[in-house]
C-alpha cells in the first residue's frame, strides 16, 4: 500500500490517460459503459489526489522522478542538477490538483445524462479524460518543457471539446477555432521562453532554473512572454475575448472543466513569478502588472456581463470578473514580496484570499454553469429573453442556482464571501481604492445574477415551458455535490484556509523549499 502511495503522483495522471485510450474500445462493446468507465477512472484519480493531499500536507512536498531507481531520487550520485523528468507536487500543486479532480469527476457524472442525446461519445469522454490529464500535468510537473507539453494536451483536448457540438453548427466550431488560434500563440510563446531558459542554463527543471536564475535580459524576455500568455489563458482582460466564445459554446460540464483549466494557467503564472523568479524580479512592477490585469478583469468582466442575454456568455464574463479577484489578491502579495513587514502584515492574507478564491470560484462557477446546462437541457435555449417561470417546474435547479449566485456575489454565509472578505480587508491596507473597486464589482455581480434569477426562474409559468420538468438524477447529483462543498467552505472557511490555503500560499512564497525539495539542502 505504501509502495502504491509512492506512485500516487503518476497514477493520478496515468489512470485517466490510460482510460482515455481505453474508452473507444469500451465503446465498441457497450456504449453506456463509456461514461461509467470515465467516471470510474476519474473517481480513482480523485481518491488518489485526496490521499496525496493528506500526505503532502502532513509530510511535505513530494517528488516523482521518471525512470529513476527510486521515485524520490532527484539527483543521481555525482550530479549537481536533475536530468530526469519529474513531478514536484507541493501544497500549491495539490491544491490545484484537488480542484481538477473534483471538477472533472463531477463533470463526468453530469455528462452521463446531459450528453446522452449526442453521438460520438467515445471521442467526448476520451477528450474529457485527456483534458484532465493535461490539467493535472500542468499542476504537478516540475519541468518547464513538460509544462509546455501538458499545456498543449489540455489546449488540444479543449479545442475539440468546445467544438464537440459543431458538426452541424457553425458557432461551436468557430469558438473552437478561435481557442485554437489563441492557444497556439500562447504555446509558441511558452516554448520560446523554455528555449531561452534552456539556452542559458542547460536546464529545464523549475527548481534547478530557480536556483541559478540571474534575471538577465534574456530572463526578462522570458518573463515578458510568460506573464501575458498565461494571463491570457486565465482569461485576463484585455486578452479575454476568447473566453465568452469558448465557455458559451462548449457543453455545460466541459465549460465547468474549462474554468478549472483556465485556473491551471493562472497557477502557472503564480508558479513562474513566485517559484521560478521570486524576489529576483522587480516584484513591485510585475505585482502591479498582475494587479492591473485583476482590476481590468474585475470591472470590464462584470460590466460586460450585465448586458448579456445569453446565460452562458453572461456567466463567462463573470468568470473573467472573478479571475480578477484572484489576480488582485495574489498580485498584492507579489508586489510586497520583497518587503517582509508588509508581506506579514497583509501580503500573505491577500494571497490567501486570492488562492482561496480559486477553489471557491471553481466550485460556484462550476455549479452556475451546470445550472445553465440544466436550463438548456429542458428549454433548448440559452437566451434569457425566452426563459421565465422555470422555478415552478425546476425546483432543485432553482435552489442550486440561488446557492451559486449568492456565493459568486459574495453573500454570507457562502464561500465567496469568505475569500472576498480576506481580499477586501488585506488589499485595503495596500491601496484602499483597489478594495473599493472590488466591493463595487461584487455589488454589480449581485445585480447581474438578480437579472438572471428574475428572467429565468421568476414570473408566471410560460406556455412554451408547460412540459418542462426537473433534470435527471445524475445532473442533480453533480449540482448537489458542488452546493454541499460551497456551503461547507462557507460555514467553515477557517478549516480550509488553515489546512489547505495557507500551506499553498507559503509554498509559493518560500522558494527555497521548492528548490530544496529537488536539489537537497532542506
Amino acid at each position, binding site marked *: 500500500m505504501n509502495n502504491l502511495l509512492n506512485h500516487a503522483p503518476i497514477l493520478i495522471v496515468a489512470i485517466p490517460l490510460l482510460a482515455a485510450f481505453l474508452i473507444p474500445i469500451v465503446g465498441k462493446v457497450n456504449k453506456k459503459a463509456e461514461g461509467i468507465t470515465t467516471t470510474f477512472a476519474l473517481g480513482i484519480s480523485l481518491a488518489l489526489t485526496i490521499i496525496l493531499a493528506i500526505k503532502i500536507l502532513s509530510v511535505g512536498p513530494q517528488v516523482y522522478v521518471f525512470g529513476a531507481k527510486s521515485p524520490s531520487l532527484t539527483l543521481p550520485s555525482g550530479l549537481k542538477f536533475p536530468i530526469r523528468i519529474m513531478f514536484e507536487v507541493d501544497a500549491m500543486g495539490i491544491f490545484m490538483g484537488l480542484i481538477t479532480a473534483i471538477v472533472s469527476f463531477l463533470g463526468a457524472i453530469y455528462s452521463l445524462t446531459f450528453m446522452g442525446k449526442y453521438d460520438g461519445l467515445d471521442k467526448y469522454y476520451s477528450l474529457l479524460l485527456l483534458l484532465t490529464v493535461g490539467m493535472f500535468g500542468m499542476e504537478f510537473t516540475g519541468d518547464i518543457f513538460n509544462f509546455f507539453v501538458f499545456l498543449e494536451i489540455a489546449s488540444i483536448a479543449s479545442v475539440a471539446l468546445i467544438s464537440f457540438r459543431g458538426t452541424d453548427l457553425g458557432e461551436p466550431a468557430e469558438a473552437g*477555432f*478561435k481557442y485554437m*488560434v*489563441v492557444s497556439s*500563440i*500562447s504555446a509558441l*510563446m511558452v516554448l520560446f521562453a523554455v528555449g531561452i531558459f534552456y539556452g542559458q542554463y542547460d536546464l529545464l527543471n523549475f527548481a534547478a532554473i530557480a536556483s541559478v536564475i540571474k534575471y538577465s*535580459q534574456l530572463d526578462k*524576455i522570458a518573463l*515578458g*512572454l510568460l*506573464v*501575458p*500568455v498565461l*494571463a491570457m489563458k486565465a482569461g485576463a482582460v*484585455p486578452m479575454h*475575448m*476568447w473566453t465568452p*466564445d469558448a465557455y458559451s459554446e462548449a457543453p455545460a460540464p466541459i465549460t465547468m472543466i474549462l474554468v478549472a483549466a483556465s485556473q491551471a494557467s493562472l497557477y502557472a503564472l503564480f508558479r513562474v513569478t513566485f517559484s521560478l523568479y521570486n524576489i529576483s*524580479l*522587480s516584484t*513591485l*512592477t*510585475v505585482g502591479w*502588472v498582475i494587479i492591473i490585469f485583476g482590476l481590468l478583469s474585475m470591472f470590464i468582466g462584470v*460590466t*460586460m456581463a450585465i*448586458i448579456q*442575454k445569453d446565460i452562458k456568455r453572461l456567466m463567462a464574463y463573470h468568470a473573467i470578473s472573478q479571475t480578477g479577484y484572484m489576480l488582485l489578491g495574489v498580485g498584492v502579495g507579489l508586489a510586497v514580496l520583497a518587503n517582509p513587514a508588509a508581506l506579514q*502584515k*497583509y501580503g500573505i*492574507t491577500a494571497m490567501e484570499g486570492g488562492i482561496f478564491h480559486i477553489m471557491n470560484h471553481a466550485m460556484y462557477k462550476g455549479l452556475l454553469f451546470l445550472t445553465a446546462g440544466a436550463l438548456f437541457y429542458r428549454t433548448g435555449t440559452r437566451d*434569457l*429573453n425566452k*426563459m*421565465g*417561470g422555470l422555478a415552478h417546474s425546476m425546483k432543485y435547479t432553482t435552489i442550486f442556482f440561488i446557492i451559486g449566485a449568492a456565493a459568486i456575489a459574495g453573500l*454570507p*454565509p457562502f464561500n465567496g*464571501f*469568505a475569500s472576498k*472578505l*480576506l481580499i477586501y*480587508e*488585506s488589499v485595503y*491596507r495596500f491601496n484602499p481604492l483597489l478594495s473599493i473597486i472590488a466591493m463595487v464589482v461584487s455589488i454589480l455581480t449581485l*445585480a447581474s445574477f438578480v*437579472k*438572471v434569477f*428574475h*428572467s429565468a426562474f421568476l*414570473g*408566471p*409559468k*410560460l*406556455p412554451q415551458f408547460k412540459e418542462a420538468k426537473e433534470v435527471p438524477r445524475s445532473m442533480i447529483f453533480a449540482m448537489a455535490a458542488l452546493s454541499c462543498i460551497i456551503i461547507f467552505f462557507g*460555514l467553515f*472557511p*477557517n*478549516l480550509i484556509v488553515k489546512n489547505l490555503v495557507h500551506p499553498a500560499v507559503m509554498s509559493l512564497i518560500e522558494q527555497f523549499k521548492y528548490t530544496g525539495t529537488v536539489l537537497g539542502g532542506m
Partner: protein
Amino acid sequence: MLGLLETGSGFWSAIIWVVVVLVISSIVIYIRNKGEESYKKNTEQDKPFISGNPELSKEGSHIAASHIYWGFTEALKDYYNPLVKIHTGNINDYSGWIIIITIIILILVGVSG
C-alpha cells in the same frame, strides 16, 4: 468550533452569523404574527394593485432580460459603446491584443531593472 477566520483586520465566523440571522428571523416572524389578521385568501386582497389599471395576462406580464437594467446601460452608454465595439468577435483582434499586451509587458519588465 465557531470557525473564526482571521482577516488581519478582524475576523469572520459564518456560524455566529447564521445564529444571529436565525434569532433576528425569529423576532421578525413573531412581530409579523402579531400583525393584521383580517387577511383572507382568494378574495380581492389577493389581486395585485396597479393603480386601478387592468391586470395583464400572467404570461404577458413577465419582464424579459433585455428590459432589466435598461436605465443603467442607457445612462452608461458612453462607457458601453466603445467597450462593446472592441469586442469584435474577430480572431485577428484577439491575437492583436495578445501582441500589444506582450509588447507593453516586455517594455515594462525591461525598463524596471
